[in-house]
């Protein structure tokens, strides 16, 4: 029987190996002779891709990119904004219902604070609040989806989902049906899945209306797949790995009214409990480790709202433009979950790292996923020969 010391020894070896790998990948001198043998590999691969692109290609892409920017850069004039405001009078019933839902979420959360300091003074969002909420619809669908991604980056998960739903709803593209169903399905679960939700919204933002796939169905399926990951992270889906019944996987051109698997979906207005620290831990096999991860998450400074996802935030938040973010590079994603069955297993193998290695990030060894792991060679579960000489 293995003793605690054995695990500790193994962990120390693993940590040493990880440090060596960092040296290898950052070009620092290595102590591990076995690992040093891989230096030519790393340098070789980098040299293959380190060349400057041909100047003709650079000029061509630069011209196209600049043209794209110039196409999109004109700010809405007062007349245009006024025109859009008039157009908004004719909201569809569903859009109106969703707008009401957006209004109600923070109100029901009992956190109707006056204003979010990030927003006041922004000329685009300085309108009356009611107009602001409707005003979310201003601009193109992709702009609003981008705003939703930024909300997610701030930890305002459910607001982000509502924002994205509004955008897709008003877009009217039939290929959005599956995406809408998927988004609505995770309305109660996505609160603290900041990185995964960002990924989902980024995918939507990039692909909505572009008809990904031969019949446009690829877009909806892509959204459903990513949404399953989020729901799986939160223990919502029965079968997050293979596509359980919780999310639509059928042709998006089918009837949009059906929302399969919604039995597990809490109403939008009740979805604000997700952001509480430790929520994942309660649903996780490894609650102690997860608790460690979540505890650290609040100290990273990257989670805009460590107390929650912003659902309980001021109602004004709903309609405000989130500040521009550099979140794509947000280095620590406290709630990013393993989504791969294979590596989920690896996570479990080294799960204890997260506990003893607090300085290396809150995420380590936090086996949220419960997908059936794909067996790997037993030799790969040990630190192995890479660390042998260190």
């Amino acid at each position, binding site marked *: 029987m293995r003793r605690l010391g054995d695990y500790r020894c193994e962990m120390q070896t693993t940590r040493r190996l*990880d440090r060596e*790998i*960092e040296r*290898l*990948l950052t070009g620092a001198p290595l102590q591990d002779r*076995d*690992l040093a*043998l*891989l230096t*030519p*590999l*790393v340098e*070789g*691969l980098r040299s*293959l*891709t*380190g060349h*400057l*692109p*041909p100047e003709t290609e*650079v*000029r061509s*892409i*630069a011209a196209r*990119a*600049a043209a*794209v*920017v110039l196409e999109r*850069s004109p700010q809405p004039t007062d007349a245009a904004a006024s025109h859009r405001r008039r157009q908004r009078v004719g909201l569809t019933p569903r859009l109106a219902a969703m707008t009401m839902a957006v209004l109600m979420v923070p109100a029901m959360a009992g956190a109707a604070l006056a204003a979010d300091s990030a927003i006041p003074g922004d000329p685009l969002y300085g309108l009356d609040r009611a107009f602001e909420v409707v005003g979310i619809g201003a601009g193109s669908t*992709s702009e609003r989806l981008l705003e939703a991604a*930024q909300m997610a980056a701030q930890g305002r998960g459910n607001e982000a989902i509502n924002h994205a739903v509004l955008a897709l709803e008003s877009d009217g593209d039939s290929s959005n049906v599956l995406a809408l169903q998927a988004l609505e399905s995770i309305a109660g679960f996505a609160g603290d899945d900041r990185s995964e939700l960002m990924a989902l919204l*980024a995918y939507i933002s*990039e*692909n909505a209306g572009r008809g990904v*796939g031969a019949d446009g169905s*690829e877009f909806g*399926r*892509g959204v459903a797949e990513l949404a399953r990951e989020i729901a799986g992270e939160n223990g919502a889906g029965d079968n997050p790995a293979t596509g359980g019944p919780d999310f639509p996987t059928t042709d998006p051109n089918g009837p949009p009214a059906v929302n399969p698997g919604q039995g597990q979906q809490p109403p939008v207005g009740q979805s604000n409990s997700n952001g509480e620290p430790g929520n994942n831990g309660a649903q996780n096999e490894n609650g102690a480790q997860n608790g460690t991860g979540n505890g650290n998450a609040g100290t990273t400074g990257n989670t805009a709202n460590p107390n929650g996802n912003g659902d309980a935030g001021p109602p004004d938040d709903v309609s405000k433009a989130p500040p*521009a*973010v*550099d979140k*794509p*590079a947000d*280095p620590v994603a406290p709630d*990013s*979950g393993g989504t791969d069955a*294979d*590596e989920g297993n*690896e*996570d479990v193998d*080294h*799960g204890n*790292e997260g506990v003893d290695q607090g300085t290396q*990030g809150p*995420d*380590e*060894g936090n086996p*949220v996923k419960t997908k059936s792991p794909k067996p790997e060679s037993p030799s790969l579960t040990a630190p192995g*020969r*890479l660390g042998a000489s260190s």
Partner: protein
Amino acid sequence: MSLGAEFAPTLEAAKDGEEWAWADLYREVAGPVKGYLASRGAMDPEDLTSETFLQVARNIHAFEGNETSFRSWVFVIAHRRLIDSRRARGRRPETTTLLEATADSTGGDVEEEALDSLVAEELLRAFEQLTDIQGDVLALRILGRLTLEETAQILGKRVGAIKAAQRRGLMALQQRLDFQGVTQ
């Protein structure tokens, strides 16, 4: 390669639609992005790279951050494009196009190129043996030069999972290359 202090003014100029700024940004990231896409089996890495970059242009107005953030953001988009292309093809990635993708831009000594090609071929074959996640992680870390945290963010995984994947991936590569005598 790095723009360093020039990044901020370049970014601002790019937001204003200045071609020179986009050219500078493209030179910075095109090689690694193309290499990443190619190594992960993108059917047409060049097209995908330009698509990625045009998507960057579409959203640049909302981007605020430093050069590292920008690079990471570009890879987020590139990775999403890659996933789309994989779905569209409906099959596992191939790792046979990195040479083609880099052939146009490599310059210099012919013999050296030939040697590079041989080694690269071995490296790519070794890469093929990795699982998807191991390949993704090592490609982002080696070719994209991204950090653990950035890689975790892009792949939607935990840092611990990324560490485990790169450990196992490197072990697998080492075993294979040792077997072939490439690293001797």
